[in-house]
């Protein structure tokens, strides 16, 4: 399935959300909340931003479902592929695999790796004199990891302007809110304190996301703090920690699907 570029944002978002819910329901798998919080970001990146020369790294590997569905919307995965999500003998494991899926460069899932991996890709592009850039999507909770900050220091020091880091700021992490667990709010101010160009946007506005990613920087990575809603578009999932983990039953799936809307 290949959605034409500049197709209606709403149509694209609804289509992807419906497919995501179906995939999770059929496989009986959780992590729906965090997938719904970043799905619009992934759609904007893949449909409006990434060029052939660019590369993408999903640092929040627990959003593999959202990535797989996004790859389906651009024709890199088939409907049959998605039916294998979380099954035995599948390439579509709960977190991205190290090889076998076009466009997925790295196995991620343990948090705090993606920014360093992306910095290495960006540095390699620069050393090789290649055009293009690297876009990395992180969660907000993974900024608890010291390695994330190590990588940010490196990327800034090396002046990696061909790197953009998007934070999916949904405010919930593994066992509490980001404010309760290890409060770094406002995250954008932490990034600015590093001297980094930092934008704050609505992470469910595809136009805003793609416009933010068109910002150029001269001396380091572009930071985008995307305010999102965990479980976005499904009222009983929104802002609920439980939907970081839980699978849906039949009634919940039907209700969620109705709330996401029709094409």
């Amino acid at each position, binding site marked *: 399935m290949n959605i034409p570029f500049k197709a209606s944002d709403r149509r694209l978002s609804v289509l992807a959300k419906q497919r995501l819910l179906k995939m999770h329901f059929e496989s009986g798998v959780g992590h729906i909340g965090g997938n719904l919080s970043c799905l619009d970001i992934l759609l904007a990146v893949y449909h409006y931003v990434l060029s052939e020369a660019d590369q993408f790294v999903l640092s929040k590997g627990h959003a593999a479902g959202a990535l797989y569905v996004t790859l389906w919307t651009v024709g890199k995965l088939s409907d049959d592929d998605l039916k294998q999500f979380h099954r035995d003998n599948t390439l579509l494991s709960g977190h991205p695999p190290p090889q076998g899926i076009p466009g997925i*460069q790295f196995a991620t899932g343990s948090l705090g790796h993606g920014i360093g991996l992306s910095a*290495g*890709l960006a540095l390699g592009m620069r*050393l090789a004199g290649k055009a293009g850039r690297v876009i990395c999507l992180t969660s907000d909770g993974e900024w608890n990891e010291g390695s994330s900050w*190590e990588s940010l220091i490196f990327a800034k020091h090396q002046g990696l302007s061909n790197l953009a880091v998007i934070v999916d700021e949904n405010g919930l992490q593994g066992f509490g809110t980001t404010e309760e667990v290890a409060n770094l709010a406002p995250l954008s101010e932490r990034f600015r304190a590093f001297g980094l160009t930092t934008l704050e946007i609505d992470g469910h506005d595809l136009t805003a996301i793609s416009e933010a990613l068109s910002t150029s920087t001269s001396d380091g990575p572009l930071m985008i703090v995307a305010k999102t809603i965990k479980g976005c578009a499904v009222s009983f999932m929104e802002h609920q920690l439980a939907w970081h983990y839980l699978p849906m039953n039949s009634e919940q799936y039907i209700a969620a699907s109705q709330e996401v809307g029709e094409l």
Partner: protein
Amino acid sequence: MRKAFCEGLLREHSREELVFLTGDLGFQALEPLRSSLGQRFLNAGVAEQNMVSVSAGLARQGFRPWLYSISPFLYARAFEQIRNDVCLHQLPVVLVGNGGGYGYGVMGSTHHALEDYGVLLTLSGMDAMIPAFDSDLTSLIPMMFETSRPCYLRLGVGEQPKDWQPPVFAPWRKLTSGGGGVLIAVGPLAGAFWEPCELMPEAMRPNLWCLSQLPLGNLPVQLLQDAATCSRLLIVEEHVAHGSAGQAVMTELFKLRCVPPFVRHKTASGYPSGRYGSQRFHRAECGLDTLSVLSFFGGENPA
């Protein structure tokens, strides 16, 4: 061995795929490499986890990253990055750990690398190179550019006797011959034993084998013949017993039903006295000194 390592990499400086990253170390050793490589030499700072992740990204772009630090700062600090970012993707990243075994001596336990290759060899596709002599680096470094696998290079202190040219680098090298049994030494320890072995009467002198590469391939036929025809076998290494080369060798010998009657394995046993000292001091505490090792050969059968 650092100087020989630097000289070896300098000879490869024209390889465009070579990128060198250091964790803020290399004073009075790596300056020539820094000058030669220019922007392909990066001081990644005191941030080893990031350094390993960055190297994976570079390798994905077609580069051959060589990472350098004090050994435990790499293999222990950044283990998950080595596991996930490098080994899961089978990327050709070389981890260079300086100070193998008790190499950092009285600098203390945080700097010692006593479980390095044992830990790293649990990872998929990882090779470990343990050169014994400075001259090993001459052939070893070009060889390491040819592999497509992750690799660990353990740098120690080469103990090459004066006026003696060791055989060219190989996973297994036989350094002395005699009728006293078999002595297998891992890496630089072999150099420490060569001259004392040569001075022993031939009947007591062990067949000294130097092991420098793991995981083990097939054991050399000559080693099997030596083991099959002797009564004493001793394996020595500056590494803890768990995950050691000695355990791997013994497993192979056992499978081949080629185990001599008297077998010992001397390893790094940490800090038995709770005191710290030179590499020589720690070796002696673990029974890895020349006197303790060679007393196993000749005389009465060991208890």
